[in-house]
């Protein structure tokens, strides 16, 4: 998918995260801050990159502010932000396809 406009998903509540995606032209530019950075920073990064890869996002600026979210929440927020940036978040989501 192509990131067409800036979009945000998630919150800054505990156990959640806020994901911002913006159009980019330099591959995936990822910034992460997390309350569990030292123990889970690597895993958060992997989950975000895998999710973007599944959605075939190749160019984007992605900012993650994590408050101790589980992997399933990280995936959900990244996906929602990407679909929102393409105005496709409301209908016909490929559940079980690109979203697994």
């Amino acid at each position: 998918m192509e990131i067409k406009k800036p979009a945000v998903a998630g919150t800054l509540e505990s156990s959640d995260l806020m994901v911002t995606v913006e159009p980019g032209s330099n591959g995936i530019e990822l910034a992460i801050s997390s309350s569990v950075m030292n123990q889970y920073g690597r895993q958060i990064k992997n989950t975000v990159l895998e999710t973007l890869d599944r959605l075939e996002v190749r160019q984007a600026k992605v900012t993650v502010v994590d408050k101790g979210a589980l992997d399933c929440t990280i995936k959900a927020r990244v996906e929602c932000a990407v679909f929102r940036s393409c105005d496709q978040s409301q209908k016909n989501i490929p559940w079980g396809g690109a979203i697994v």
Partner: protein
Amino acid sequence: MRNAVGRDIPDYLLTGGKEVYQGKNYMDGKYMQKAAPKTRRYEKPQESKLVETIADALRQCGCKDGCTFSFHHHLRNGDYVANMVVQAAVEELGIKDITVAATSLGSAHDVIADYIEDGRVIGVQTSGIRGRIGDVVSEGKLKTPAIIRSHGGRPRAIEAGEVHIDIAVVAAPTSDCVGNCRGIGGKSNCGSLGYAMTDAKYADHVIVVTDTLVDFPNMPASVEAIDVDAVVVVDSIGDPKKIASAAARISQNPRDLMMAENVAKVIAATPYFKEGFSFQTGVGGPSLAANLFLEKYMDERGIKMGWAIGGICGPMVELLKKGKVGKVIDVQDFDLDAVNSINQTPNHFEMSASQYANPANKGAFVNKLDFVVLAALEIDTGFNVNVLTGSDGVLRGAPGGHPDTAAGSKCCIIVTPLVRGRMATVCEHVVTVTTPGDCVDVLVTDYGIAVNPLRPDLIACLDEAGIPHVSIEELKEKAYSLVGRPDDLEWEDKVVAILEARDGTILDVVRKIKPYTLDEA
């Protein structure tokens, strides 16, 4: 050198007779030489010890470079006094190389963090380290490693002369003109002054800082004029709103309540739950809520609690007033109900930190405890508990009386949710061992109960009562299945804090954390 909880203690710390932790009760029966303070004689009758400013009092007490100050934390997050004193020493007297020996340090003391950063404060000894002080010490900005001791380990170290206090500062809600202090009757009341009592007896000099001067004699005094050099009256010693909450309310959080109920069930299943049993509980959500459920079991069996100790708050005072507890003995108060009850309600007494928890004296209360209910930041499969460092390796906690009560009690119950956000509370190895696993008996979580295999007798009790329990390994696996297995923290060599066991041996060290950054592979 590896110690009895498997922690590597650098040899360079083992000087001057310092040993590594060898297990519970290792020092039992040994003799110690008590230290004596060098104090000034006040033979000539004095009308008053009132001094105009804190700086004047410091000068009178011979404050000089390398001075060790002691502070106590009864004013909790509302404390103004520690900051005022350190500020006066640095800014007005130009003192360098200060050591702050406090019973606890927290967010009220961010000013001291500044002095650590600019090198004026070079030593920190405390039972609790939170807020910005925790951050700067973790970042390695303190010149010498911080020394963390339990509430019992601190008076032990003071009495043994391992900490020599040049000037003890008492933040007194009321004092008379010669320094008889009480924790009540003023405008910033805190109730018990238990932690200040031992310090005042062993310090070379004692300065009382109060905001409410009362008529002589202020009786019964917690800290007595016979130990006090100077009294300073200031506008305010603290923010009453942050000293004691209106009333510590029992948690309504369903998770806390569920765990608390299981704690009470475990207690009621042991043989120690009988007429006259003794009890201490923390003030955290599930620990405090255990009071509520325990009362039900007491009523059902028709038994009463003999005595309770600890930091005290309203729910325990209420049990005392209802006649369900014989005596409450109190080293600190957490809410106004407790503040207004100590030495007022019959059978609600004050005690010193040494009397509460010092393992080297001849009769600490903790050693007579049947039950203690405690929280944890982390607990590992060896039942070792961490209440000092976050699972990110940063100092942000307080051993407090945790290791003392765990070691002294017959049944130590840890109650904690299995995970907090993405942090596994039950884990393979705690970041820092603050309470050794051989002192911990039962773990109650929201996902199940585990009993330390060292206690087959308690396992039999739970089986008998039909209380399901699992191994702590199962709980750890469940936690990791929820949050994922954390990566190991990475450390630098530099030791930023030394954690002493209650008996004075070295239980663990905290090193400087190497933060994870995205650029790494």
